[in-house]
């Protein structure tokens, strides 16, 4: 029913006496991404000021490498968190896919692309299973994916030992098709003479696509809605269950990408790969402004969260701080980053709510 009704004649750009003037700088500040950008800049400044290696091209390539693999997962996990769910199996799934690539390529002697495809199918299956179980039972995803996390951890170990007799799959470099796979997933690209890992490009691509989907598509709208209030969104016709399942499959796909990169790059995979990383992904997403309760967050923020984490991790090494205190410094720097972010936003908050 969209009949013409008498609309008051006022253009959208009309000034409103109920709105105070706000500078463009402050307006920028309140975007969630820009909050974490501040954190990233503070950390970057901190370490760059103290270590010239950190700010050298080689240093940048090094910490970008750390951030990129983490970032691919963090972005996917952020989407899932915006949609209101957790995936504790995300970390171990990178191991599962890497091991699958290894086992199919080496033990079953297939072309590496076949192995990578097989790993994708497996990952999508696991993601769909997670999503199906969560939507079907209505149980918290935290507990469901904890179950799959533990089961995958067991499978990774059990199957690897079954196939190889040990806890490591080796010899992926000898699989047919390895060189093309290496080119796509594990090569380096020279920039000003400094090789950068191609994973950085993947990270940027994943962030861009995720951001586009989130902000510019119907599906993105559904993600926000499902995470914001599942009942309400179902009531207005959002396919909340489908959205949830697709989100779990998205995290699984990201895990597959990271797993394939790992397998091709290291050419050997340990059975415990990825275990324990799931928390770090969540952390990167939260640093990037995602709400744990769902319905709010950004893909770019998560990518920046991963950057903060990666820079901090490597920066501490570059400063040659005592390794015994590594975690102390890591924790302190993280708090510093989020508190700065918070402070800046408090100041800028005057610009909204």
């Amino acid at each position, binding site marked *: 029913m969209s009949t013409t009704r008498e609309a008051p004649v006022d253009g959208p750009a009309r000034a*409103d006496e109920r709105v105070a003037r706000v500078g463009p700088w402050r307006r920028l500040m309140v975007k969630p991404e820009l909050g974490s950008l501040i954190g990233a800049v503070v950390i970057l400044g901190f370490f760059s000021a103290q270590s010239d290696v950190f700010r050298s091209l080689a240093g940048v390539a090094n910490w970008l490498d750390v951030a990129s693999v983490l970032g691919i997962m963090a972005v996917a996990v952020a989407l899932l968190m915006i949609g209101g769910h957790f995936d504790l199996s995300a970390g171990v799934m990178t191991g599962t896919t890497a091991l699958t690539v290894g086992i199919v390529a080496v033990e079953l002697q297939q072309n590496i692309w076949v192995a990578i495809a097989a790993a994708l199918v497996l990952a999508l299956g696991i993601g769909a299973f997670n999503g199906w179980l969560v939507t079907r039972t209505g149980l918290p995803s935290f507990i469901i994916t904890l179950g799959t996390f533990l089961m995958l951890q067991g499978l990774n170990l059990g199957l690897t030992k079954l196939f190889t007799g040990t806890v490591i799959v080796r010899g992926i470099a000898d699989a047919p098709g390895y060189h093309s796979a290496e080119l796509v997933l594990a090569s380096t690209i020279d920039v000003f003479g400094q090789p950068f890992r191609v994973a950085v490009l993947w990270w940027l691509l994943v962030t861009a696509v995720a951001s586009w989907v989130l902000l510019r598509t119907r599906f993105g709208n559904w993600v926000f809605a499902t995470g914001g209030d599942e009942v309400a969104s179902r009531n207005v016709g959002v396919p909340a269950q489908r959205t949830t399942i697709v989100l779990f499959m998205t995290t699984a796909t990201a895990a597959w990408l990271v797993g394939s990169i790992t397998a091709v790059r290291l050419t050997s995979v340990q059975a415990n790969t990825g275990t324990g990383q799931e928390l770090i992904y969540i952390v990167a997403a939260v640093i990037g402004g995602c709400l744990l309760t769902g319905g709010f967050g950004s893909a770019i923020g998560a990518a920046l969260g991963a950057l903060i984490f990666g820079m901090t991790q490597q920066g501490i090494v570059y400063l040659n701080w005592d390794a015994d205190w590594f975690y102390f410094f890591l924790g302190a720097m993280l708090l510093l980053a989020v508190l700065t972010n918070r402070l800046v936003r408090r100041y800028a908050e005057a610009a909204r709510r």
Partner: protein
Amino acid sequence: MSTATDAPGGAPLLELRGIGKDFGSVIALEGISTAVRAGQVTCVLGDNGAGKSTLIKVLSGVHRPTRGELLLDGEPVDFGAPRDALDAGIATVYQDLAMIPLMSIWRNFFLGSEPTTGWGPFRRFDRATAKEVTRRELAAMGIDIRDPDQPVGTLSGGERQSVAIARAVHFGARVLILDEPTSALGVKQAAVVLRYIAQARDQGLGVVFITHNPHHAHPVGDRFLLLNRGRSMGDFAKGEVTREQLTEMMAGGDELTRLAEELGRPGGA
């Protein structure tokens, strides 16, 4: 137009036969039968907790009835989800509004029915259209929003309700269901909503309207379904009741007049 008042208004769009709904041990509805006809406004009246919201949630696919049958155009239907009802052209304003507080006004407006532009993998949410339509529809209700990007959670109660109504009116194709749409509205906005209801009826939609205000119910209602403690107390055509009877049926509607006297003040209803 006044012919619709007494005549059945054609075959029912939606029909309920002996509908009952339990929530665990709570029996919220029992043996409700009524019909929603094109070009008619069915008012559902009743005390707090009588089961009005539960009834409309059955109509809009939120709850599956525990007992009884739901017919759409004479055919039995089973709405598994609100989407099914929406696809059948039934749009609803829920009492709790079904809005996502953290999302912007325009995203909420088009939630679940997003307009798209582009094709193939580049098909995307048409944000310009969405914002424009949102602003227009709200302005038509007399709500002049500052910024369609404002999160719905920061709107005033009435502004939020207006967004929900404008959305349902925009998307309602055959049946429009409104659960206490005017409760938080100003007098002006409430009048706009009543005029919408009349417009929708005139365009041949079936309207289900829940209100506690007899001054709102009587002018637009064609039929009045009275609920009490989950059971139907009768289903009256407009001709069969006067406003006074209606107010009486709405559980002592004259209380206000009596109250005014009792308080020993001038004025009153």
